[in-house]
């Protein structure tokens, strides 16, 4: 066997080995493939959404603090079809604060003042308790700290506000820094169909 044919033989053999390895590995991996590449918060794992942690002082702020973006891609989202439209919303007002002359708590809960409250429907100007209120979250201000999410849940609220990944902002980091820091591994790479509004499995104790 001359030198050039030997060289050619090794080259062909190497090509065959590489090709086999690549195709084999690809075949193994493809069976576990997902359609989407997105991070989603599992509401039943998030300590702010899930029930069991009490009070704004024990709020988990990892979503606000650890995202690589300066303003986190995780934001609070109010699903208006689930909102109780309370007059004294525990996610809007700091219900621990003193009550002002109008009968409403004097302080707001959101440290960034990102929630806008306005009466809707047929407004009764004399009795604030007789009105429905709409709570719009200003997504430009919200940084996903989770205080309102912590408050709007059983027994005070209906759980309409949840933390969600905003897919127009999320960079889909391969190694999500929030997921690395999440105490409950609530932020997970979602599969074929992300369902951030899935119902909570546990009731409040």
């Amino acid at each position, binding site marked *: 066997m001359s030198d050039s044919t030997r060289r050619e033989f090794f080259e062909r053999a190497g090509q065959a080995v*590489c090709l086999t390895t*690549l195709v084999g590995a690809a075949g193994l991996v493809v069976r576990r493939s997902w359609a989407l590449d997105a991070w989603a918060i599992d509401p039943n794992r998030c300590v702010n959404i899930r029930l069991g942690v009490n009070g704004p002082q024990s709020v988990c702020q990892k979503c606000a603090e650890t995202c690589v973006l300066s303003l986190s891609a995780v934001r609070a989202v109010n699903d208006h079809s689930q909102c109780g439209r309370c007059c004294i919303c525990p996610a809007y007002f700091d219900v621990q604060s003193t009550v002002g002359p109008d009968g409403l708590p004097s302080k707001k809960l959101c440290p960034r003042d990102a929630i806008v409250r306005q009466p809707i429907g047929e407004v009764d100007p004399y009795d604030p308790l007789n009105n429905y209120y709409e709570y719009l979250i200003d997504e430009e201000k919200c940084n996903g700290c989770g205080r309102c999410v912590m408050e709007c849940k059983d027994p*005070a609220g209906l759980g309409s506000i949840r933390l969600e990944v905003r897919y127009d902002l999320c960079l889909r980091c391969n190694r999500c820094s929030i997921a690395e820091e999440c105490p409950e591994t609530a932020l997970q790479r979602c599969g074929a169909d992300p369902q951030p509004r899935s119902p909570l499995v546990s009731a409040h104790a």
Partner: protein
Amino acid sequence: MRPQAEHCWKLSRSLAIARRPIGASGRWRRRERVFSSPASLVLFCTFILGAVLGSTLASTSAAQEVNYSRPVAAAPQPESIGADYQLPAVQHVPPRGQGQYALDVVLLVAAMAAVAYACHRGRRRMLVTATTLLALGYFGFWRQGCVCPIGATQNVAASLADPTVGIPWVVIAFFFLPLGATLLFGRVFCGGACALGAIQDVVVLRPVQLPLWVDRWLGKFRYVYLAAAVWFAVQPAPARDFIICRFDPFIGVFRLSGTPWVIGVGVGLLALGTFIGRPYCRFLCPYGGLLAVVSRFAWRAVSITPDREIDCRLCSTACPFGAIENCRASRTACLACARCFASCPRQHAVWNGETACNIGPAPLVELSPPPREPEEVLV
């Protein structure tokens, strides 16, 4: 009034102290924290009083009928809110569509095809530069570095080790397509499609040649890094870590945010890269290590000259990456940047259409002898 006052007292006590829902419907229990102060308690008592009075008066006068049944256990819907209230759009944004992922993959393939064409057929550095800049813009600053094949190595390793770890199909495509392209045409991914390579390629200003042994030995570190990355990726879930992504030096530059010291390393590598060509690609990139192994068996290797070597060594001095040894391109080290073409005299002669200058033996030019000075003028 006596029974109502008593009712109020019981309510306040059970709400503020026992924190227990009142009544079978549990309709008051969402108020419990509101009544921590006396003023709100008074307000609430008035509220209850009004409700009871209203309900008693309702039988006699329909005009007094007021719905005081909030707070409610279920969310009020637009028909009960009235006044033609429209639900505002919930601020959901759907995840990135399949079409956009497909666009990423198509652009990756197109970039590698452009570099392969430039290196094997077109023989133009210009095309590689254009591809590099586009890749830097799109994969780097627009998509902000994710997804990239370098990090995808860890996803593939984790997915192979742990069957429960899913992997998006776009990550699979980004991992295997450059390897396949390398098996065909050499490291065309490194040449123009890689955003991390592109950002280093644009800062290569005054490259110096490293001694060959330094290049070789520092290049071994890629495999150490690759082994460490795979090792951390195949750990079970709590200990799993993607160190390539954690210590990616240029992602912070793309995003203009991130861990300060990692950005510092990235900027330092870029500064180093002005005189040592692409230090991350040559000495650190784990995926580059994989590509180097595969490129040894590439179907088509990059040839420096279009026809025959004249061993002028101009290409060796032009290559910033030390990929030309003894006037021949090393398949594994060549990053398919096409810089050597620009410096090759044969390339200029054969490829740039300058055949008029005739590369064969130089035609003899009859040099006329210098005019002789008249010597015996004054004699």
